[in-house]
């Protein structure tokens, strides 16, 4: 079986660039799968918790109407083909996604795991985070060398989160720390700084993922209050990520950690340029409040933030989208990240971003951007070779 794009001379130039999918979701098949990684104290709670989307002792009940809420939990118990919320098995992931779309590698994360940082409890999410990280390492990273992992942390207990980052990062293919967009405070706050420090020390990126806004103990998904429908929610919640971005920049997270990259997953990006126009403008007058911010905020964002292509809305004509991005700090803000296997995941062939991006940006979007954001992925630079080896070795 040939999975490497470089081996196929019939493909176009763009398609011959190795492609990394920086956002693929995985999940356990049965709740019992996690038990070996969880101390006995927590087994009952884990198994008796509401199933499906929120396997927590805390019922996370969004206050808006979500027509697919039931479908999510049903889909996730199923065989896990594309269209479900998460891949339940590395072989399924490899067959239905990596090989189906000639992907050289994927960064995976546990679909449910960002939620645990929104639990009101402290000790339980600390334990669950560790269990999920150990499980994803054993189940997925050890099964397929094309897969790179995300470290789940319980932000409720920063010391434990730091310890867990250092522990989980001992696996060389853990490449990023995963934080939910839904949070109790913006991520630039001093409370979270040790988490970013640990990520930087380990050479990990930090991915802030959309989808948990308003859940658990996090703030409502809009600063004006609760949306009433999913239609309202999905558009309005952008401001949650916006607040994290602004907080990280003004608080000097990238002064503290000049090598750190923060990834916005599922956040879109077309809203960003006009926002940065304003951010830049205000900085000129208010820079004395954050004197360590010594350059335009758009320059900091252009250097330290990357956005997954998955939730980027197709713009007609597409040239307008790229023109908008060029208006601030270049176009290297976007990397290919599908959010697979969700129903709206874009494979490389159908991706708005890849199909419309200028030729000069293809390599960046397909792989260079992710490799630069996640320094640990450089270890696996020769994806073409690894790809073939991983395919035969993991079956």
């Amino acid at each position, binding site marked *: 079986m040939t999975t490497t794009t470089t081996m196929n001379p019939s493909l176009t130039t763009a398609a011959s660039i190795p492609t990394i999918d920086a956002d693929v979701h995985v999940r356990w098949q049965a709740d019992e799968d996690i038990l070996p990684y969880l101390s006995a104290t927590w087994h009952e709670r884990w198994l008796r918790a509401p199933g499906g989307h929120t396997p927590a002792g805390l019922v996370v009940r969004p206050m808006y109407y979500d027509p697919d809420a039931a479908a999510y939990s049903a889909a996730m118990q199923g065989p896990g083909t594309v269209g479900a919320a998460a891949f339940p098995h590395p072989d399924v992931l490899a067959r239905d996604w990596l090989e189906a779309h000639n992907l050289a590698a994927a960064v995976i994360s546990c679909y449910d795991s960002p939620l645990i940082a929104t639990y009101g409890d402290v000790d339980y999410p600390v334990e669950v985070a560790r269990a999920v990280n150990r499980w994803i390492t054993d189940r997925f990273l050890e099964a397929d060398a094309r897969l790179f992992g995300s470290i789940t942390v319980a932000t409720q207990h920063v010391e434990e989160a730091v310890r867990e980052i250092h522990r989980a990062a001992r696996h060389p293919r853990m490449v990023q720390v995963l934080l939910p967009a839904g949070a109790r405070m913006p991520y630039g706050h001093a409370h979270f700084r040790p988490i970013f420090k640990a990520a930087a020390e380990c050479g990990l990126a930090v991915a802030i993922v959309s989808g948990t806004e308003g859940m658990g103990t996090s703030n409502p998904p809009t600063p004006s209050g609760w949306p009433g429908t999913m239609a309202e929610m999905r558009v309005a919640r952008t401001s949650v990520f916006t607040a994290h971005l602004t907080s990280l920049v003004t*608080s*000097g997270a990238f*002064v*503290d950690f000049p090598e750190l990259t923060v990834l916005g997953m599922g956040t879109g990006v077309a809203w960003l340029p006009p926002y940065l126009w304003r951010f830049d*403008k205000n*900085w*000129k*007058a*208010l*820079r*004395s*409040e954050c*004197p*360590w911010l*010594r350059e335009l905020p758009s320059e900091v964002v252009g250097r330290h933030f990357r956005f997954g292509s998955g939730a980027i809305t197709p713009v007609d004509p597409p040239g307008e989208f790229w023109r908008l991005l060029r208006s601030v700090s270049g176009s290297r803000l976007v990397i290919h990240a599908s959010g697979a296997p969700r129903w709206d995941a874009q494979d490389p062939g159908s991706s708005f971003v890849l199909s419309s991006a200028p030729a000069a940006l293809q390599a960046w979007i397909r792989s260079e951007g992710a490799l630069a954001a996640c320094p640990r992925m450089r270890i696996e630079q020769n994806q073409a070779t690894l790809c073939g080896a991983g395919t035969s070795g993991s079956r």
Partner: protein
Amino acid sequence: MKTETASATLAGTSSGPRSTADETSRSGALPDSICVGAAADIPEGGRRIVAVGKISIGVFNVGGRWYALRNFCPHWGAELCRGRLTGTNAPAARTGEYNWGQVGTILRCPWHGWEFSLESGRAVFDERLKVRTYPVTLRDGELWIELRSKGGAQETE
């Protein structure tokens, strides 16, 4: 803060500032220097805004030092010299580092809050952006703005 304004224009008004050469009306050019009045009339912390031909200049007394700047913000043209005098946190190498300085010599535009150094006329956020500054000289108790020479504040006696 009290701001005095000399409302008269240069040419032909008895109450207006005197100039070294009474040539503005003829050539349209500015005189070499212009007298803005007795230094004793502008107390420490005070300022006076004078019209010179078609332009406006602010003169400031900060701790006994004199400064003069164009009364025009390069951003949107606000009357910069009506802004608040304050200090600023100098650009810092590390987070959490606040170096409050240039106390009393940072002029904040009243419209959008851009900070300018009274000393250099330069914007704090970008030194390439500059407001014209003029040397101020003190002759026999009178303040003179030197319109021809470039440069910042000057202490003379």
